[in-house]
Each structure stands twice: as structure tokens, then as C-alpha cells.
């Protein structure tokens, strides 16, 4: 029996704040703990210095919005560290992230068409 994916009204959440999108992006390939997530976002750059208050407040709001959830599963005890909290995308979060990506893609295509971006070779 094919699993029917629930559909959400994702449009009302768009556009996402850049940091929110980056968090969703960071979790796109699997669950991570907060610390690894923040390093990932920081590495992709674009935020200058990412300060703890700002990051964790945003993280909380993303949890509250239901885009991500705390994961119950944990890595083996040896590599675990009890201050680590693990997060993963919810189905809503995944759809919202996809919708935002499409929106950004459309924007980029449009920018290209209007010669705002040089065509890459």
C-alpha cells in the first residue's frame, strides 16, 4: 500500500528567514545535534558571526513551528554526550524547506534571465 504523504499548506510559512532555511538545510541529510548544526550553518557562511542567543532562539522557534523535532534516537553511548540534543526534519519542515528552495530557485532563475547573474560557464 503506497504511503500517502500528508500535504501541508506550506505557502503560509514562506518566505523563510534565511537562518531558518539554513537550519532546515543543515538537517536535510539526516539528524544532527545542535552543536554540529551550528558549525554546519556557520561553515556555509553568510551570517557573519552567528551568536548563541540568536541561533538558539531561532532553533526554538523552528521547533515551535513544527519544522523540526527533537530526535529520540541517539548514537551509541560512547560517542554520545548528554548535553547534545539531536534534531531532525519533520515532514512539514521538509516540505517547507523544499518549497523555500523552489522559491529561491525561481528567484535565481529570474535574476539570471534579467542578467543580474553572469551565466556560469
Amino acid at each position: 500500500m503506497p504511503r500517502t504523504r500528508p500535504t501541508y499548506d506550506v505557502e503560509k510559512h514562506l518566505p523563510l528567514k534565511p537562518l531558518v532555511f539554513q537550519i532546515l538545510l543543515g538537517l536535510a541529510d539526516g539528524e544532527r545535534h545542535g552543536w554540529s548544526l551550528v558549525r554546519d550553518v556557520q561553515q556555509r557562511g553568510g551570517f557573519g558571526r552567528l551568536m548563541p542567543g540568536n541561533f538558539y532562539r531561532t532553533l526554538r522557534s523552528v521547533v515551535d513551528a513544527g519544522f523540526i523535532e527533537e530526535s529520540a534516537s541517539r548514537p551509541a553511548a560512547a560517542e554520545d554526550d548528554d548535553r547534545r540534543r539531536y534534531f531532525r526534519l519533520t515532514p512539514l519542515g521538509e516540505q517547507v524547506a523544499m518549497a523555500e528552495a523552489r522559491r529561491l530557485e525561481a528567484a535565481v532563475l529570474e535574476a539570471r534571465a534579467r542578467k543580474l547573474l553572469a551565466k556560469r560557464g
Partner: protein
Amino acid sequence: MNGGLRRRLYSLLLLAFPRSVRREYGREMTELFESQLEDARQAGTSRFQVWSMAITDALRHGGAQRAEPIRSVLVAAGRSVRRWRWWMRAFFHDVRYTLRVVARRPAVTLLAILTLALGIGANTAIFSAVNAVLLRPLPYPKPDRVMMLFEKRPAEGAFDNPASPADALDWIAMNTTFDTMAAMTPAPVDLTGSGDPVRVSAGAVTPRFFDVFGTQPLFGRTFQSDDAVPGKNRVVVLGHSIWRERFGGNSSIVGQTVSLSGVPHVVIGVLPETFDFPDDTLRLWVPLSFTTATPTRTLHYLNMYGRLKPGVTLDQARADMDRVGAQLLQQYPDANRGHGVHLNSMTAQLKGPIRSPLLLLVGAVAFVLLIACVNVSNLMLSQAAARRREMAVRAAVGAGRARLAGQMLTESIVLGLLGGAAGLLVARWAIAALRNVAPVDTPLVGLQHFTLEPRVLVFTVVLSLAASVLFGAMPAWYLARQNLNDTLKDAGRSPASVRRRVRVALVVSEIALASLLLIAAGLTIRSFQSLLNTEAGFERDHVLTFAITLPASRYRTPEAQVAVFRSIESRLQTLPGVRAVAATSHLPLAGNDSRRGVGIEGREPTPDTPTRAHVRAITNEYLNVMGIRLKQGRPFGPADTDDGSKVIIVNDTMARRYWPGTSPIGKRLQLGGETEWREVVGVANDVRFWGLDRPVNPEMYLPLGQYPTSFATFALRTDTAPSSLTAAAREQIHAVDPDLPVADVQSMSDVAADSISSRRAGMLLLTVFGGLALILAVAGIYGVMAHLVALRSSEIGIRMTLGAQPSSIMGLVLREGLAQALAGLAIGMAGGVLVMRTFRAMLFEVNPADPVTIAAVTVLLIAAATLACILPARRAMRVDPVEALRS
């Protein structure tokens, strides 16, 4: 900076975040911050910059998260505001509509507002009085703990006697249920030195008096136990008002010396403005000290106050004081024969006597408001009739019934609130007027709160809204329940019969309320009349009175006291316009008193029939000046001095009680504690000494020369208005002694008036409210009759076409109006008599079913009702039959 310190500093910053965030993410946040610092170090940038960013970050995001709960409340509030907005929009639409309606009919609106203003204003004023003197707790900490104690003599039916000094000290020492207990007696003192000499009333109190009331001084201190020791007792505590008026509100007064009756006293403290004692004539306070080693047990003049220990009930305290009383009775069987201790909470003692008169007034103003509401309701009903079509049209274009009723209710509320606002103006004026008739013969606490204070304003708003619903309900119901289709089809003809019954019922109830009030007013007027006509035993017209107290420092001997009173008397005698002058130690109706046990020759007192009499020292002309008739024997003469044989005049009551069946002339008696015999030489008519409505007790008059006092009230019988002689009399007294203050200058008729001022206040107010009710009821009858005549104009036209005479038409209208008036009258009379039966205590020698009152109210109401019907009746007579039939 090492890692530990860094982490500690950062954890301080984390305090900006809510605790839940710190718990969940605190460690990760610290870790992230440290990595930022590390990055900066590696990049060679300033770590100071990272720190300042961290501070901004913490304040901004931490603060935002802390504000989250408030924000969510605001969001929820916003949601409900949106929901309410619809209702409010409807309401404001109705208000705007109402204002248009109101503006279209300014006369009707003004009439309604005025009517409501009278009703609401009167209620606000009376509630303000009730609030000030009944509802507010006494202005002391834990006021229900404050008690008043009295000596009781059940055999004589007396439960509020003052205590004797020896008993008072024993009560204080022997009780186990009071935290503190204290005695007080008013003592007039002459304040000299700073400005004109004035006589003021001081409260002489035992040291812990102010502890009973929980009063802290504004400056300095109150009394301590050694202040009562004779010799150390030259100290005074100033009341707030005299401190401000006489000493300029200067705090440096503490420690200075003032002269009280010629004796220097050191000011040790000033009381706060908030100290409110029932006897507001007491303006300063001195220690009460007993100069004799063994205080007397036979003179009773101390008012006793106490504060109960925490947890002690009134009943426990009563049992305790009963025990004390019984023990004292055992120890002093002679002095305390038949005596006990009675106690009551100060609240009950003070508020008890005024509760019932005030409640009667509350009822009276409530009736006035009810009548006002009926009138406005009637007014709106006639408007509603005219607006049936308008309402029907609005309904036809989609307004629901609830919406229409809501519109009517909104109109009522707008009218009610406007009436309430105007009522506040009425109340302000009424309160000023009421303050002038506030009784002076009843102790009241809290009169300074007799204003439009916030609690009163809330009452007014609530009352206005309640009145709106009351008078708006009928028209709203009437409009909402009508059949809209019929109305539209009928194009304006109204089902008069239904509304007529309703309106007639309204008028009848209105007249019933008014006549009930008039009965109450009439009965109090009659009571007051019979009070004024009471044989007082003296002639109060053309008598000027004033009091003089001799300072003990300058008039030490009884001879000196008698001499100065005599020389004042003879000087006053020379004044033109003065017919006769006399002095007495105790003036009737003035409030002070003195009583002694007497031994009557040949009559042994028994415990159940003690022989006591009230003592008055008088000069020879006293009975003559006061117009007190001598029934038997002779008045005092020049021979009745200290050297002559001791003589006495008794009043009629004393003669009948102690020498029943025989003439007392020539009989002898001894004053308690004396061995000398005094011979009765005269019997004087009874004088209503204690109040025009109070019974007479045994009284005896002694010549001042044989019974000297240091205080006297002079009475001058004058040819002209008594007040015209005040200045001249003062001059003569100051010619004798420039430092003698003259106090309580009053005509005897004013003294008498003051003694019945609470009855006068009750009578005046009930009369005003009764009059108001009558006017409103007459307006109501007029309105309804005018409306009925207008409705029946076609019927009247037919009658006239068929040959009815104008006079019979007039009779028709008058009959109808008077029938309503009589129905209301009958109901109201019965109610009035019943109500006044429960308030019988307010009546004096008048039966609640007094025929004169009933007849007067009947005549008054019928005359008023006829007047109200005549205008509509004349209009009915002038109906043009042709015109009436055509329309």
C-alpha cells in the same frame, strides 16, 4: 582570561534568557560562544568585539524570549478584541443613532435627564452619607476590637452610665480580656498665651488611651504611665486641628510650653489628622490624674474604652467584666449596690442609633428614584408608540428583534448615564446642603468622608445603569414584541388598550410610592411639631446663654469663685436690653450633668430604690430668667448665702418620688457624703433637662453661694434678639477679668434646636424627598392623562357629536385621573403606615396611623392629581368634533 572565568562571565550573560532556555541550551550556547572567541583569536580579530556582540545578542534575544508570554497574552487579547469589535461597532452605531434621536427631541430628552438627575442625585447624596458614617469601618486599626464600657444599673434600666474613677481603675487592673483599657472625661480648659484666650475642650485620659485606638503621634509622643503622676502631669498632646490653627502647624511646638487654664503645660506630641474621635469638640489631650489618694467611687463621669486581646470574643469579654463587676459589688456593697459592667463594640455603639434613620432615608430616596424611573419609562413608552413605524421599517430591512431591543436598551443606557452625570451635580449640591443639617446631637465618625469619593462614584454609575435597565425594559419589550407586519399595514394606529393598562398601572404605582413617602414625611413633621410643642418647663425665647469656667490657678477658693460670678452677674444686669441675669452650673439640653446620692430624712434607701438626684447650683434669679414656674414655696433670696441656713428647691418629679402624697416644703435631706441637713423651701416645675423627648428625673437646685462651682453658664433674659447682646456681654466679662474666655455663646432657642437636630434633619430630608416624589408623581399623572386624551380624541369627538357637554367631557377625564390617584393613594397609605410602624422609634407622640397626617396627605395628593388632570381635561373639552372625526 582563563576558561573558567570566561565561562562564568558568559553564564552571567545567560541570565538574560528565561530559565527554561538556559536549562535546555545553556551549555551549548556557552560552547558556541567559546568557539566564536577561538575563531576570533585565530583570525587575529578583537575578542572585545566578540564580547560586545555577545552582550547585545543576549540582551536582544534573551529579552525577546522573556517577553514571549506577554506577547502571547497580547495576541490572545487582540483576538478577543476583534470578536468584541463587532459588538462594539453595533453598540457605537446604536449610540450614534441614539444621539440623533435625542437631538431630534431635545425637550423630551432634557425632561428625562432632569427627572433621572433628581432621583440619582438624591440617592448618591444619601449613599454618600451612608458610606461615610455606616459602611466605612471606624478609622482605627482592627476597629472591631475597640470596645466601649459602661456602668450598668439594671434595676434602673440604665446601661450606659459613666464609671467612677475608683471603679475605672479597678476595671483596668482586674480584667483579663483586654489588651488595653483607658478612661476619658472631657475637661474644658482655657488656652491662653498664643492669641486670644479661648475655651477649648480637652480630653483628660489615662495613659494608655491612645493605645486603645492604635494612634501614633504625628510628632513627639503620647502619654506614658508616669505622665499621670500628680506633679508630673503638666503635659499636653495637641489635636491636629488646634495645632494647625493655633500653632501654625509648626513641628517645633513639641517641647514648648502652653498655658492651660493658667497652668503651664509642656507639649509632648501632636496627633495625626487621621485621628477621628466621636466627640470632635475635644481638641487637645491631657493626662487624667486623680489628686486624692483614694479616688471616689460615688462620682460617675468617666467614659471607658478598651481594646480586646486577639482572639477574645465579645461574649468572653462580657463574662470577664461581669466577674469584675460582681467582685467589686462584693467588695464595696454600699457604693456599688446594683452596679455592673456593660460593654459593647464601639462600632455598634456609634452606628446603632443612626442606622435606622439612615435606612429610612435610603428607602425614601430609592422610592424617589423608582418614581423617576416610572416617569421616564412612561415618557419612553409614548416615544416608542411614535416610533413603532420606524422600528418596523428597520425590522423589515433586516434588523433582528434582539438588535432592535438592543437599540432601545442603548438609548436607555445613554439616557441613564447622562442622567447620572447630571445627578452628580445634584448630589454635589445636595451634599453641601446635607452637611448643614447634619445632626449635632449624635456622635458621628467619618463625616469628613461625606463626599463624592470614588466608592460613591462607582455607586452612581451602577445605579445609573440599573435605572436604565429598569425604565428601558418596558419600552424595549413593548417594541420588540409587536407584530411588525400589523404595524406596517396599520400605518401608525396603535393597540392603545394594551399600553393603556400598562401605563395606568405605572401611574398607580407611582402615586402609591409618592403617598407612602408623604405619609412618612407627614408623620415625622407631626412628631417634630409635637416635640416643639412639648412643655419644656422653661421659656426658650429671648434668652442668651454662655459658659465660663474659672481657672483654678487664679480662683482658688470657693469664696473667690462665688464672688467673681456675682460681680459678672451684677455687671451684666446693668446692660441695656437685659431684663434679668442668672447663672447655673448645668443648663438644660446642653448636655452636661451631675448626679449625687441623697439621704432623705425619714426614708431609708433600699438597693432597689436608691435615692439620687441631679444637682444644679443656681443664682437667685435663675428660675425667673428661665421662666421655670415655682409650684410651691419660695425662690432663693439674698439671705441664702453660705452663712445662712442651707436650703434647696426640688423639681416636681423629685417631690412626687421622694415625698409621695405630702408637701416636701420644710422636709430635710443630706447630700451623699455630707452631714449637713438642707431644708426644702420650694418645688419647681419639671424641666425637660435631658431632651425634649426624654423623661424627667429628680432634680434639685441649690444656691450657688451654698454649693460653689468653678464653672457656670450665664443666662440673660433680653428684650431684643439675644445675639445682639453678645458683644456687650463679652465686654462686661472682660472688664471683670480680661483673661476669662467666654464659651458656647448661644441663644436658649438654639440650644433647644441643637438638642433635636437629628430629628430635624430626618424630618427635613423626608419632607424634601416626599415633595420631590409628589412633584414627579404629578408630572407622571399629567403625562399619562395628556397622552390618553390625545389617544381618545376621536372617541371624545363622537361623544360631543352625540351631544355630550364639555363639562361632562371634563368630568370624564377628571374621573379617570382621580380614580388612578385614589387607587395609588390607598395602596401607598397602607404601606406608609406599615413602614412607619417599624420605624416607630423615629416618631414622637404620634400614632403611625395618625388621622391628621392621613387626611393631609389625601387632600394634598387629590389636589395635586386634580391639578395634573385639569390641563389635559381642558384640552379634551376643546376637541373639535369635526376635526377629531376626520383624522
